[in-house]
């Protein structure tokens, strides 16, 4: 074997190695610069939205559902079948009924205020926090930070605002079911106290299900790709 032939594979290997190194360098060179999101942000209180049945409501004119962050100054609006609760952590909560629009402001001094344009709002302030309800005409009441407390108001433009416990009772304020049908109940008759019509429906449907083959259920609903 002559020298030329013996060195051939080595030369090819060396060339391949060089080419590979060059590729790495090229890849590094072509990589997009890392974009930072280092936005200067002053620490501030941020609320959390919960909507009933995870129905979207409007926050600053944009659709928002449970888990959205609420910043001070947000304009919140619910539609006919939508209600929500804003959890402000140590300050308290604000329950919002359907067909309500308000501006919610809060600060680091544990003050929060719901300025209601229309609709029904319930403010629940914790101890050491001050909750306030208002319209654009002015304040309608504040809670006592020594005790905390609840304020409730109903307002339609052109009418006098109604303030007091229970004024939102039939408005369905908040994201939580307060009067559940059958919650912990037993005694409605039928299966598990569910009531006769429900029991009949369940047994009928249960029979249908029993005759239907069981399919494999997916355990990762979002799948590997979007």
């Amino acid at each position, binding site marked *: 074997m002559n020298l030329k032939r013996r060195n051939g594979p080595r030369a090819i290997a060396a060339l391949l190695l060089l080419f590979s190194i060059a590729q790495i360098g090229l890849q590094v060179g072509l990589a997009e610069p890392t*974009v*930072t*999101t*280092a*936005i*200067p*942000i*002053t*620490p*501030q209180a*941020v609320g*959390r939205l*919960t909507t009933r049945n995870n129905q979207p409501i409007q*926050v*600053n*004119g*944009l*659709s*928002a559902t*449970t*888990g*959205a*962050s609420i*910043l*001070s*100054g*947000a304009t919140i609006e619910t539609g006919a079948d939508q209600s929500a609760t804003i*959890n402000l*952590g140590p300050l308290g909560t604000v329950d919002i009924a359907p067909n309500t629009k308000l501006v919610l402001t809060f600060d680091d001094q544990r003050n929060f205020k719901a300025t209601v344009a229309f609709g029904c709002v319930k403010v629940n302030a914790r101890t050491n926090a001050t909750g306030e309800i208002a319209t654009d005409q002015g304040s309608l009441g504040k809670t006592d930070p020594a005790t905390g407390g609840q304020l409730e108001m109903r307002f339609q433009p052109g009418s006098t605002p109604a303030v007091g416990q229970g004024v939102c009772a039939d408005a369905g304020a908040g994201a*939580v*079911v307060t009067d*559940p*049908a*059958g*919650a*912990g*109940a*037993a005694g409605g008759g039928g299966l*598990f*106290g*569910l009531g006769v019509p*429900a029991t009949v*429906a*369940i047994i009928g*449907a*249960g029979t249908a*299900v*029993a*005759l*239907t*083959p*069981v399919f494999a*259920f997916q*355990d*990762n*609903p*979002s*799948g*590997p790709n*979007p």
Partner: protein
Amino acid sequence: MQAAARFGFARLLGKYAVVSNSIPAADQAVNLAPADAEVHRARARVLNRLQMTGEARKSFEIATSLRYRDDLLWLELGSTREELSDRTAALAAFDQAVRWAPYYAHPLWQRGNLKLRMGQYEDGLADLRGAAASKNSLVPNLIDLAWGLSRGDVKSVEQLINNDHDRLAFAQFLARKGKGEESLQQTRLLVSPLSTQNRLELVQQLIAAKAFAPAFEPWRTDQTVKPPVILNGGFEQPISAWVDTGFGWYIFPKPEPKIVRDESAKLSGAASLLIGFLSGEWRAPSETIVQMIVVEPEKRYRISFGVRTKALVTGGPPVVVVKDAGDNQRLGESEAFKTPSSDWQTMSFEFSTKPATQAIVLEFARVANDCTPCPIFGELWLDDFVIEDVTTVNSQR
């Protein structure tokens, strides 16, 4: 067969429990199929609705242990844990959700929001940005949050912009906030030119936010057209009736009066505008034909136009009025049109803009008087509308 029926029945009970918020039904479902994550989820949902959040958490934890690859279950668990003010545990659950659905928007969006509430702004915004990259409809929400967190700092929010889609969303956001110049600045940075639809949407958003002068910039396609100007003042071009593009003539949609471009009569050029009152009715006169014109504050302007009347009979003759587009305050008006008939004549009037005036609205209206009801019959023609800045000629305020 029996196991399958039991399983199916448990699921059905679980669904029923959620619909009726029934804890007994949820409990029974769990008893029937304790190894089924779905019934534990159903129970947890019922408990959550009934504000029994601690119990709900336990059920969600069982459900996630049974079906640990379900990102939605992890999200519900995380949300419940946050309700209980256990943010660290909530974050751990959201981390799992992201782990099992790394390319989807919803886990990143939820985790990003939680991180913001935990004061982890940089990480939170990175998650939200990732979510918005996966689901474009979240871009406006991302911009809104970043805007609020940065206390309205354009430069800060701009750092989140990745592409033309995001930048257009930011330009529209700024337009809605009335930040006209800043909005235009963003449109100038777009790699691709604005589509006609996006351009006109931006114009409408700027006008709605009363940023009239910036709105005129994207509206005009001919860069030689500079304010102040009355567009198509001689009615030489056709008027698109009932189409409000922001600037140019806008004719309100109503049956009376008859408004048409007329080539048979003109003061100059090839046509004029004919307004005919045939039925005697003229409801809401100021909502007949209008044009918004960009002007400068604290200036004096003169508007001149040609008018011709024919058999015009009314107790409240027509006039041309100028109002401030910002607050609708009347700034000036012409003399009443001659009745019943007159040949072409040129009328003019002057007015001054206020310190906050950005634009005026030129309206065709009628003199204010107590003529009620106030029928009107006959025809009139308008032509050659011109606006001039006469501040230096006549500084009268």
